[in-house]
């Protein structure tokens, strides 16, 4: 892969002036300095990666460049000229395009309508038709196939990303910012994206590529700038860089790449799933005849690109979504389509994907959040009356045990940091010796410290004899933690491998829908 990406590289014109340059940019939010005197530039015909952990300030920096934030100090140069970018509109006019991590698309609209939105030069009447033609031209030139008349919600994440890139190109973007573009892609789609980026490099565009994944940054970038806690640690040429060096710069210390995972003998089945079918919010089949089982004392990982039915699967197992066909047994009892409350009462813990929207009640205090789901049972509630002393006692233990940083247990949960919110959820879910833990993207978006702590917690559950179902987009995480790994693709499980014998490439193929020959 590395080699064929390399052949596409044109002369890099190191002396050509940068397309854009951010000079000493500082931007702070209440309580955090997100960017501290950051200087960064991108030249024509190069891919400049911005590498750093979640929360290092990468997104804030490009948001300044795209006019979404105004810097507290420092300034922006476009083609050597100092400019003030007050809005995305001005950024677009200056030839800057951005593909956000969470796509900025109007889902119920068609591709063409999305492309026409706010686009100069589209006809007033029937704008979608007018823009469709230009879309087709561009998609051929850059190798980005899409159908202008499809509605965006029908498209896969990869296709939606193409729409975003086309939108930027339509607006004459010379500099394209891609914020964590590969997080929604299969390895194969990632390869295709990299080919598109090479095309853009050849055409003289500058690309800012934001990522926290070392491998792909090394693969695609010409230069790499590493950020940590709002500051630039350094900028290096990709040619002379390697993974350990980047990792050190990124984290600021040597990184331990392996957790200690004790040997565990799997026990009886904690969960048996037999051929279940589940629909998504739009009423379309999302999980199609999935069967597997999770034993006690085992972590069963589900890998796969987001949007292939993992969310619906987990929600169905947690009782939040109707199972149309099939059967779910927990500890041998048939619990198909039972209520979330019953499932929680028999020992199913659920660490939800959307932790702020679903996992906590933002305005309720930390202690009140800690009893959610068990608020109706003794000792917290007797005859309909809450028991504040028991709640307080339980909260204090949980806060200490899990190291939740909060000024006091009465603080509203919304004031906690992301990592502490997740710790709160895990403290609550894991407190009652669950038989089965459903963990969806448990470390997504967290810093290294919290991530390690949470992985540690999941391993401890496994040792304590719980069955753990781990869904994650982070393939490394699944391979590190799980005993067995299943891959989901378009609502089906394309194969199950045991962690010891799994190879990255093989799982990658399965993520793209290649059936594994079971043997």
């Amino acid at each position, binding site marked *: 892969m590395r080699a064929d990406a390399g052949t596409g590289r044109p002369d890099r014109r190191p002396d050509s002036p940068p397309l854009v340059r951010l000079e000493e940019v500082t931007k702070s939010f209440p309580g955090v300095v997100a960017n501290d005197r950051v200087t960064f530039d991108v030249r024509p015909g190069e891919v400049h990666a911005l590498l750093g952990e979640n929360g290092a300030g990468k997104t804030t920096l490009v948001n300044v460049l795209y006019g979404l934030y105004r810097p507290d100090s420092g300034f922006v140069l476009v083609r050597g000229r100092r400019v003030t970018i007050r809005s995305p509109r001005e950024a677009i006019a200056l030839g800057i395009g951005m593909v956000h991590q969470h796509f900025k698309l109007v889902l119920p*609209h068609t591709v063409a309508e999305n492309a026409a*939105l706010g686009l100069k030069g*589209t006809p007033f009447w*029937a704008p979608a038709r007018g823009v469709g033609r230009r879309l087709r031209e561009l998609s051929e030139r850059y190798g980005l196939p899409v159908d202008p008349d499809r509605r965006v919600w029908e498209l896969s994440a990869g296709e939606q990303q193409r729409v975003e890139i086309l939108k930027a190109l339509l607006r004459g973007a010379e500099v394209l910012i891609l914020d964590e573009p590969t997080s929604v892609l299969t390895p194969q789609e990632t390869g295709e994206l990299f080919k598109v980026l090479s095309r853009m490099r050849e055409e003289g565009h500058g690309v800012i590529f934001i990522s926290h994944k070392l491998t792909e940054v090394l693969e695609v970038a010409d230069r790499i700038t590493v950020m940590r806690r709002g500051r630039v640690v350094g900028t290096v040429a990709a040619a002379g860089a390697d993974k350990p060096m980047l990792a050190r710069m990124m984290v600021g210390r040597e990184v331990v790449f392996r957790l200690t995972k004790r040997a565990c003998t799997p026990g009886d089945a904690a969960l048996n799933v037999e051929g279940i079918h589940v629909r998504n919010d739009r009423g379309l089949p999302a999980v199609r005849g999935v069967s597997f089982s999770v034993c006690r004392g085992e972590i069963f990982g589900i890998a796969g690109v987001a949007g292939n039915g993992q969310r619906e699967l987990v929600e169905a197992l947690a009782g939040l979504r109707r199972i149309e066909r099939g059967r779910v047994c927990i500890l041998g009892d048939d619990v198909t389509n039972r209520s979330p409350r019953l499932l929680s009462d028999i020992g199913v813990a659920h660490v939800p994907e959307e932790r702020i929207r679903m996992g906590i009640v933002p305005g309720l205090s930390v202690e009140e959040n800690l009893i959610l789901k068990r608020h109706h049972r003794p000792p917290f509630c007797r005859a309909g009356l809450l028991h504040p002393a028991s709640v307080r006692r339980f909260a204090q233990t949980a806060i200490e045990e899990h190291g939740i940083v909060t000024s006091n247990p009465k603080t509203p949960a919304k004031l906690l940091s992301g990592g502490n919110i997740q710790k709160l959820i895990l403290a609550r879910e894991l407190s009652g010796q669950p038989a089965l833990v459903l963990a969806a993207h448990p470390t997504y978006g967290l810093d290294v410290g919290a991530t390690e702590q949470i992985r540690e917690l999941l391993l401890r559950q496994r040792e304590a004899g719980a069955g753990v179902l781990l869904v994650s987009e982070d393939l490394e995480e699944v391979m590190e933690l799980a005993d067995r790994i299943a891959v989901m693709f378009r609502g089906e499980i394309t194969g199950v491998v045991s962690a010891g014998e799994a190879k990255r490439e093989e799982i990658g193929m399965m993520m793209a829908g290649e059936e594994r020959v079971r043997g």
Partner: protein
Amino acid sequence: MDLGWLVSTVSRALAFGVPLLWGTLGEIYAERSGVVNLGVEGMMILGAYAGFAVAQTLGHPGWGLLAAAAVGVVAAVWHAFLTVTLRANQYVSGLALTLFGLGLAGLLGRGWEGRPLRVPLGTITVPSLAEIPVLGPMLFVDQTILTYLGILLAVVLWVVLFRTRWGIAIRSVGESPATADSLGINVTVVRYLCVALGGLLAGVGGGYLSVAYRPSWTEGMTAGMGWIVIALTIFASWDPLQAIWGAFFFGALYHLSFRLQAYVSPELLKLMPYAFAILVLAVSGFGGARWRRRAPGSLGVPYVRGER
């Protein structure tokens, strides 16, 4: 049921549906841009008062309607200021607008109470179309110009919403303001304009009541029509064309509640449109998501840049 009865019922239903149609078209635009305005009742009553007062003073119904439109815009812009700029709760702001509007119109209108308008808006007869048997007298006689303007407006507003750049911008702002913002659409301006248009049309709808339909001023003469408008907006799935038949259906209900008084007690008849509004929404709830088209994605949610 004889033919004459049917003809006059349809004709009156059409006339009574006009304020509902104008109001609903306005609310559709406001909600398509993501702003619920529960102040329709308040804007309509203010429009009705202003329309009457100005038409009476200046002696021409045209000025009255203009004044009604202007008052509606002012009230709506105030709602937009509170909800878009100050990001206040849209429900509460709309309720406040209704309370305030009913109070203010009642206060100012005390002197005019019960007096007939000197020069009401005249009715027209559409040449040649009126000659068609049955349909002619049903649809083309004894209507004011606002009936036909309203239908034309519905068509125009549909075209603008679904076939022009402006429409894409409006719908995008209502579905996903962050997306529109990231592409340089000014969310604030779009929402102000749509809410203001909503006020303009609601104002005219109110003005129609006092200047054309029942040319006089009575306190509380909108009688909850503003709320029916809110229900109709949902019922019409935020589609200007569907608002046409929805409005005239409820116009018929209102009219029938007068018409059937010989058979049923008038008080029970008067509650019919309100009961139907609930019924209609409940029935559309039966079909679930398939039957009913979704509300705009960010309806009721103030937009704050940079918040996810």
